[in-house]
């Protein structure tokens, strides 16, 4: 008789044990339409646009693998106070994301140099017609309110790059001779 072989029929009883233990544990079911799920920050639900930060640089539209971002803009001249000559700036006319094409890769959020695009955990924006999945900037702006604050850095992790850079700059300023 081999020693590793469990007694025949033992699995029947361990099966009974597992199911009985499960009976007294909380179920995993989420009551979705009644109870909204709590999704972590940066969940890939929808991409929100903070249009004040957008400079129409087109980086996101160009990096988008399936070309689902549409940007129209025009240049405007304006006269800042105390400046010698008028300046030019980009004004965003249209910013739209076609969510029937978007594959939620997040490259646009990564590539945006001005923090105008954010991941929002909102996910229930489905439409009955695929053509209605093209959302303009007003709609994209409305999702900014649902973007949660980023989670705090792990205490044992590396410090944030910004903090490291700021610390170095301060050190430099303190050790430098007063001018």
């Amino acid at each position: 008789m081999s020693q590793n072989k469990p007694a025949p029929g033992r699995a029947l009883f361990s099966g009974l044990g597992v199911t009985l233990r499960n009976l007294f544990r909380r179920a995993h079911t989420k009551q979705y339409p009644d109870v909204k799920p709590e999704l972590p920050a940066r969940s890939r639900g929808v991409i929100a646009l903070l249009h004040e930060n957008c400079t129409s640089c087109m980086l996101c539209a160009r990096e988008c693998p399936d070309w689902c971002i549409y940007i129209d803009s025009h240049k405007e001249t304006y006269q800042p106070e105390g400046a010698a000559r008028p300046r030019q700036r980009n004004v965003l006319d249209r910013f739209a994301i076609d969510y029937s094409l978007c594959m939620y890769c997040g490259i646009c959020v990564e590539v945006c140099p001005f923090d105008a695009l954010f991941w929002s955990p909102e996910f229930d924006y489905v439409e009955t017609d695929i053509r209605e999945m093209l959302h303009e900037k007003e709609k994209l702006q409305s999702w900014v309110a649902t973007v949660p604050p980023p989670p705090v850095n792990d205490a044992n992790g590396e410090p944030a790059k910004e903090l490291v850079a700021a610390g170095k700059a301060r050190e430099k300023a303190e050790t430098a001779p007063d001018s």
Partner: protein
Amino acid sequence: MPEWVELALRIVAALGAFLVFPLIVGQAEHKVMAHMQGRLGPMKAGGFHGWAQLLADGVKFAQKESIVPAGADRAIFRLAPLVALLPYLFVFLVLPLGPHGLVAQPLDLGLFFVLAILGIGVVGVLMAAWSSANKYSLLGGLRAAAQLLGYEVPLLLAAASPALAAGTLSLPEIVNEWEPWWLLWQFPALLVFFIAGLAEIRRPPFDAPLADSELVFGYLTEYTGLRFAFFLLAEYVGIVVISALTAVLFLGGWQGPLSDSVGWLWTLVKTALVAFVVIWLRVAWPRLRADQIQRFCWLVLVPIALAQLVLTAGVRIALDA
């Protein structure tokens, strides 16, 4: 109270139990099975934890079209669900609920009557299988025939043991005679009766005649609407009947503390516990193959039941001597 009023009351009570208890067991199965699998089960129907799910199911079944296949034997096909369901109603008449004659119809031959009636359900299954004119139904029906006829033997032999021990075939009398130490020496019979009962009502792990992953739905393949609902109801009535019989024959029915006042509660609690085990086994255990079912019946259950009969007879003789 005139006699006919009392009679009517008893019959209505039995009918009520026949209609209510299977629904409770069905709902319990929904919930217990769900929680054992880490789910919640029905939560919407009726508002509070889906308590009205089975009522909603009943309404749904009633609304569906009852289709009779073109090749089917129409009369037999229509009759089969009733033949499968109604015998259980008569079983409810003789199941004792509590002491002092708390039973719809006390019968001296109660156990004999119950076992004879349970055999009729088999005919309903065979009628459904043959009349459907469907190969899956026929396969399921043949499996059911082999299984039901086979398991009838250990069921009867095991049920004979407590009758022999009590010296009577009347169900209330068997409970009267029952004593807690019977749990020990009648334990093999209890196991055999419970297992054979599971097979008789075709519950997992003995559901090879239905086997939805092999035979579509066995002998129920062609049934729809209300007739299908009758078969489903028959399954749950079957759970109640087998659980109640196990409780009455082997677990002492109404016996327990304060049995004079709350004896009926003891019967219900014991029945509910056995029904819970029936549901539990469905969740935990895989289905036996048709050949394993036969082998288990003839090579394990029948010998144990026979040995138990010998033991019971010996103890009876020793006690009487």
